[in-house]
């Protein structure tokens, strides 16, 4: 089954390569007065890797993403990007927000052009718009470029958000449940869209999701968080299903069902039973790594 592991060559060094991490999260905690949301969280994201974070509502996923984005600071620990400690937001890290976060007074095109103009301040307005147009074409929105967000459907708005994030050519793409507000059909289409764009660009990505199939479709690794407070990463799943993966073909893939069951089982029971103080022998720096899809095919 090594073919499965190597289905996506550029992520090959990401499986265990903390050294190769583009992003290295080292022992971060976030505390509010009287509340420790999470603590002792360690993980890495390797160059070209797609990592998903799964956990129950309120365990601190958005907080982690905001810390990676530089919009929030950790109470303890550090986040390194290419070996340098993060301080504040940067164009190297683009965010696709849960609520599209488009500016309603700008057309779809100008929303993207604003981002392009921030990335390339030297560009003229016309050039920025031309690049924005190309970015919108990539998500199939060229025809709606002149429309304001209010005149776009939810899926189209999120597409503009995706185009805006890709338009700044970030080193790391951060996504906070980008599709959770969409209907199942639109969500599926956008997941494949993002999958394609990420593959084309060799994009390193970190995504929060509640949708198990979404994680399986997109991720190289899936981080499972226990329930808060004092949440931590209980387990890391390596998604060994070969690429390309499609939404339609996903559940015919060998290994899909054990993988899905494992995550569901975690979400339904183990996220709760594992909550609280870590079990003896648990090394927060190296949470257990499991490959449920692989185990089944060997069995």
């Amino acid at each position, binding site marked *: 089954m090594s073919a499965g592991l190597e289905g996506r060559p550029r992520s090959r060094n990401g499986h265990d390569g903390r050294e190769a991490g583009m992003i290295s999260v080292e022992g971060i905690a976030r505390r509010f007065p009287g509340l420790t949301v999470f603590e002792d969280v360690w993980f890495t994201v390797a160059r070209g890797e797609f990592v998903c974070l799964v956990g129950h509502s309120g365990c601190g996923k958005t907080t982690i993403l905001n810390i990676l984005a*530089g919009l929030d600071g950790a109470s303890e620990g550090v986040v390194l990007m290419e070996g340098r400690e993060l301080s504040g937001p*940067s164009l190297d890290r683009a965010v696709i927000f849960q609520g599209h*976060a488009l500016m309603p*007074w700008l057309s779809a095109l100008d929303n993207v052009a604003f981002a392009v103009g921030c990335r390339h301040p030297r560009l003229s307005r016309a050039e920025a718009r031309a690049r924005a147009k190309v970015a919108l074409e990539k998500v199939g929105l060229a025809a709606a470029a002149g429309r304001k967000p209010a005149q776009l459907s939810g899926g189209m708005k999120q597409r503009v958000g995706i185009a805006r994030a890709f338009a700044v050519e970030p080193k790391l793409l951060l996504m906070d449940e980008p599709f959770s507000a969409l209907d199942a059909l639109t969500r599926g289409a956008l997941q494949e869209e993002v999958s394609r764009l990420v593959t084309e660009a060799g994009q390193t990505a970190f995504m929060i999701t509640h949708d198990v199939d979404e994680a399986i479709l997109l991720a190289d690794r899936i981080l499972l968080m226990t329930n808060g407070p004092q949440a931590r990463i209980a387990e890391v799943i390596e998604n060994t299903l070969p690429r390309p993966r499609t939404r339609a073909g996903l559940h015919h893939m060998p290994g899909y069902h054990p993988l899905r069951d494992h995550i569901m089982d975690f979400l339904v029971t183990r996220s709760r039973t594992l909550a609280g103080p870590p079990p003896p022998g648990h090394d927060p720096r190296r949470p257990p790594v499991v490959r449920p899809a692989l185990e089944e095919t060997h069995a």
Partner: protein
Amino acid sequence: MARDVSPWKAALLSLALLALLLGAWELALSGPAGPGGAAMDPEYAALLGQAAQAGGQTAMPAPSAILARLVELLADPFHRRGTNDQGIGIQIAYSLWRVAAGFGLAMVVAIPLGFLIGMSPLLNAALNPFIQVLRPVSPLAWMPLALYTIKDSSISSVFVIFICSVWPMLLNTAFGVASVRREWLNVAATLEAGSWKTAMRVILPAAAPTILTGMRISIGIAWLVIVAAEMLVGGTGIGYWVWNQWNNLSIADIVIAILLIGVVGLLLDRLLGWVAGRVAWQE
């Protein structure tokens, strides 16, 4: 329930009401007992002074007379024959100039200051007591102080306009800026937009509808206040002109002034309404 009203029907009804009002007014004055000093309360006539006491002269003109006077005034609205005889257009222009100057000055102060207050909770808390105390003060109460310190009556009225327009703009700007959605600021931050770019390209357009609401309230108040201010300081302007016509007992002119003040006020409001429509956005 259908609440839609045909604009034609409404306009027809408006016209009918106007005709009824003017007709009744005309009739009441054309009756035998109507015109003339005889029908007037003697004390009131005394108050009105010589002109009314002379008798035989109508203090309250009929609509037809007012219309004739209006045509006369509007035939040459911009004439200047000495300081006390200037066309009504000139007087309105003086008032508009003062409102524009005071309002413009208020914008220059209120919008940047409102930005700072809206962005800094500390500044907001620190300045709030001043604003709360000064805002309810009638702008005319500032007049003596303005006259004393500035010594120029025209500039004093500009100052009074400034003082009355500054508060709604300041409070609305601060509120609009403070309620800019976090996520847009986050977008700007992740794009490293910088504070100037964020202020001009994100916060300003986001807060523009609220700011415009404040400006619209301000211009309304300013136009109310300028008439009173000019009555107080005299010299030029529509307020002074009204007061002057009162001293001349030209009631027709006063009625015309009321009408014109109303129309100009409406136009000012429409102008800002139009700007507000341009900067409005919907989610």
